[in-house]
C-alpha cells in the first residue's frame, strides 16, 4: 500500500552531552492515531520538534507526509498541523484574526479560504466566538481554536503535543471525538499526552523512557505483554504495612499504591481476590475489599518505567 505517513529511522538528538532522543525508529500509517507517552523530559517534545522540522536531528532520518525533515523542512511544514499544550495563539487578537493570520501563514487566501474558515469555525463550534478576544476565552474554547488554526490547511499529519493539558473533562471528551473523526477521514494523528486514559483512544502507543522508545504496540497488546497475570485493586484500612509483608510472597508480581488503595499484579495460578483479601487481613489490614480489574495503561506505564531502572541497578 502507500508509504507510511510518518517514518522515523534511528532518529537521535543530542543537546551537548545530553542525549534527548536516542536511536528511535517507528512508522505511522495514514489515518492512524499514534500515541507517544513518557514522563517529562523523556524526549517526547524533542521527537515532535524534529518531526515538525523545528529541530534538526543529530543522527538518523525522518520522513513526514513523504518529505524528508532534513532536506525539505518547508514541505513538511506545509503538510502538517501542530498544536501544543500552550495553545499558542495571539491572545490580544479576536478569534477571527487568529484564523486569518494562520490561514495566511499557510498561504490560504481568497474565497476558498473564507469558506474554509467558516467551515472550521463551525467544526470547532466557534461560530459565536468569532469576534471575542482570544485571551478572554476559557481554556476549552482556546483549545478548539488552536486546533482549528492547525487544521485550516487540511494537513495530512496533525501533531498534538499535550493537547488537553488544563482542559476540563467534557472538553477533553469532545476534543477526542473530533480527533477520531479527523483520523477516520484520513488525517494521521501523532499525539503526546499525560493522561493515560486518553491514550486508550490511540491505535498504537509508543513509550519513551530516557530518550529511548522502549515499547511500541496497541494498548491491549501492551497490557498483555507488560501486565501478565491478574490485576487486583484493593481498598481498606491499614493497608500499607500489610502490603509490605505481601510483597515478599511468591506469585506477587507488583504491589503499587493506587489512590487510597493498592494495585496488585499477581500470578493468576497462585492468587485470586479471596486469597489476597485473606493474606492482607492476616497481615493486619482491616475492612479489606478486593476487586479484580482490567489492567490499565497506567499499569503498563509503571511496569515499563520500572524495567530500565532494574537493568541499571548495580
Amino acid at each position, binding site marked *: 500500500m502507500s508509504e507510511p505517513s510518518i517514518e522515523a529511522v534511528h532518529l537521535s538528538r543530542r543537546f551537548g552531552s545530553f542525549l534527548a532522543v536516542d536511536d528511535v525508529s517507528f512508522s505511522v500509517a495514514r489515518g492512524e492515531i499514534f500515541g507517544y507517552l513518557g514522563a517529562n523530559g523523556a524526549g517526547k517534545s524533542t521527537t515532535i520538534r524534529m518531526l*515538525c*522540522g*523545528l*529541530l*534538526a536531528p543529530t543522527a538518523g532520518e525522518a520522513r513526514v*507526509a513523504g*518529505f524528508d525533515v532534513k532536506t525539505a523542512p*518547508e*514541505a513538511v*511544514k*506545509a*503538510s*502538517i498541523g*501542530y498544536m*501544543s499544550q*500552550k495553545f*499558542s*495563539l*495571539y*491572545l*490580544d*487578537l479576536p478569534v477571527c*484574526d487568529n484564523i*486569518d*493570520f*494562520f*490561514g*495566511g*501563514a*499557510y*498561504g*490560504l*487566501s481568497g474565497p476558498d479560504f473564507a469558506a474554509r474558515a467558516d467551515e472550521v469555525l463551525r467544526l470547532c463550534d466557534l461560530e459565536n466566538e468569532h469576534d471575542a478576544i482570544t485571551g478572554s476565552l476559557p481554556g476549552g474554547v482556546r483549545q478548539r481554536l488552536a486546533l482549528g*488554526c492547525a487544521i485550516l490547511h487540511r494537513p495530512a499529519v496533525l501533531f498534538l503535543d499535550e493537547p488537553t493539558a488544563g482542559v476540563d473533562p467534557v472538553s477533553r471528551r469532545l476534543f477526542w471525538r473530533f480527533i477520531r473523526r479527523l483520523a477516520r477521514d484520513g488525517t494521521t494523528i501523532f499525539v503526546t499526552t499525560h493522561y493515560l486514559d486518553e491514550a486508550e483512544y490511540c491505535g498504537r502507543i509508543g513509550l519513551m523512557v530516557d530518550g529511548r522508545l522502549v515499547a511500541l504496540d496497541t494498548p491491549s497488546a501492551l497490557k498483555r505483554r507488560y501486565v501478565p497475570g491478574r490485576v487486583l485493586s484493593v481498598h481498606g484500612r491499614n493497608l500499607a504495612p500489610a502490603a509490605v509483608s505481601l510483597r515478599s510472597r511468591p506469585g506477587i508480581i507488583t504491589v503499587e499504591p493506587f489512590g487510597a488503595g493498592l494495585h496488585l499484579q499477581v500470578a493468576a495460578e497462585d492468587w485470586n481476590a479471596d486469597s489476597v483479601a485473606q493474606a492482607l487481613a492476616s497481615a493486619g489490614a482491616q475492612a479489606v475489599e478486593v476487586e479484580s480489574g482490567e489492567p490499565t495503561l497506567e499499569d503498563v506505564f509503571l511496569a515499563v518505567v520500572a524495567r530500565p531502572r532494574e537493568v541499571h541497578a548495580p
Partner: protein
Amino acid sequence: MIARPRWTVQLRAVVRKEVRQTVRDRRIMFMLIIAPLLQTVVFGFAVDFQFDHVPTLVVGHDASAQSRQHIRRLLADGTLRDAGHTTELSEVQHKLQTGDAAAALILPAGLARDLAAQRPAEVQVILDGGDPNRAVVVAGAASRYFGETAEAMVKARLAARGIAPPPLIRATPRIWFNPSLKTPPFMIPGVMTILLVITTTLVTAMGLSREREMGTLEQVLVTPIRPVLLLIGKMTPFLVIGCFDVLLVLTAGVWIFGVPLHGSLLLVATGTVLYVLSTLGIGLLISTVSRTQQQAFLAGFLFAMPAILLSGVMTPIRAMPLWLQVVTFFNPVRYYIEVLRAVLLKGAGLVDVWWRLLALLGFGLTLLTVASLRFSKRVA
C-alpha cells in the same frame, strides 16, 4: 506534491497581524504617536542652549555715574539680568551657592577716578562654573562689552588730541543657516533621531521577545513561513510608523518652532528609511539575545543611551576624546543626525551626504543580516 504557499499571501498575513496587534495595544500606540509629539514640545520648549537673562549680582563699590552707566549698558543686551545690588562679598557667595545668581560683577571702588587719572582699572566677573556653557557665555558678554568700551575710550582720547584713530581689525560674525541662533532648529532633528532609535529598536526587540514568551513564535515557525519573511513582515509596519513619526515631528517642528526646511524632503525620507533599517536591525539583534520582554527592554535602553550620547545629538563629537570620536564612526545614530542637520538646516544635497547614506545602508544591511542569521540559527 504540496504547492508551495505564495510568499505574498504569507507576508500580507504577517503585516496585517502585526498592525492589528499594534493598533490594539494602547501602550505601543502611545509610544508611537503621542510620545513623539510630547517629546517634540518638551524638547522644543525646554531645551534651550541660548543663555538669556543670566541672573547677575552687581557689587558696586564705585558710586560714580560712569559705573552706573556701565552696569546699565551691560545689562541692556539681554544676556545678563540684574539680580540685585550689594556691597557685601559674603552675599555674593551666598547667592551663587543658592543659585539666585549665576554671576557677579564687581566694580572696584574708585573705578572712574582711576580711569580719569590714567590708571588701569579692573572689573571682576565671578562666574558659577557649575554650568560651564553658561559661564562661558557670561564671560564672553562681559569681555565683549568692556573690550568695546576700552576701544571707544581710546578713540575718544585720540580724537581729543586731534589724532585719527589707527585702523583696527575687527571680527564680524555673520551667522548662516540659523541666524538668530535659536535652539529648536538644532534640537528638532535631534528629537527625530532619538525618537526613532528608542521606538523602533524597543518595539522590535520587545515584539519578537513577546512572541517567544507567549509561545506563538514556535507556532508560527511550524507554519511554512520562512523566518526571514516573518522578520520582514514584522518590521514593515514599524518602518512605516517610523517614517510617519519623522513626518509628525518635522511638521510640529516647522509649525511651532520655525525649523527651516532648506533641503530636499525626499533626501530626508531616504535617510530615515536607511536609518530605521539600522535601528530595526539592532532591535532584532537584541531580541535574538534576550529571552524575555524585560530583558529586551533593558537591552534596548542600554544600547539607546550611549548611542544617543555618542552621536552628537546633544554635544559636539569634536569635544569628545579621540578614542571616543573613533567609536562614533560605528554609530548609525551619528550619521542620521548629520544627514538631518545638513539637509534640513543647510540645504545639503545628495552630493554632500551620499557617503553618510551609504554608511547607514551598510549598517542596516549588516545588522539585519546578522540578526536574521542569528534568528534562523536559534530557531533551527
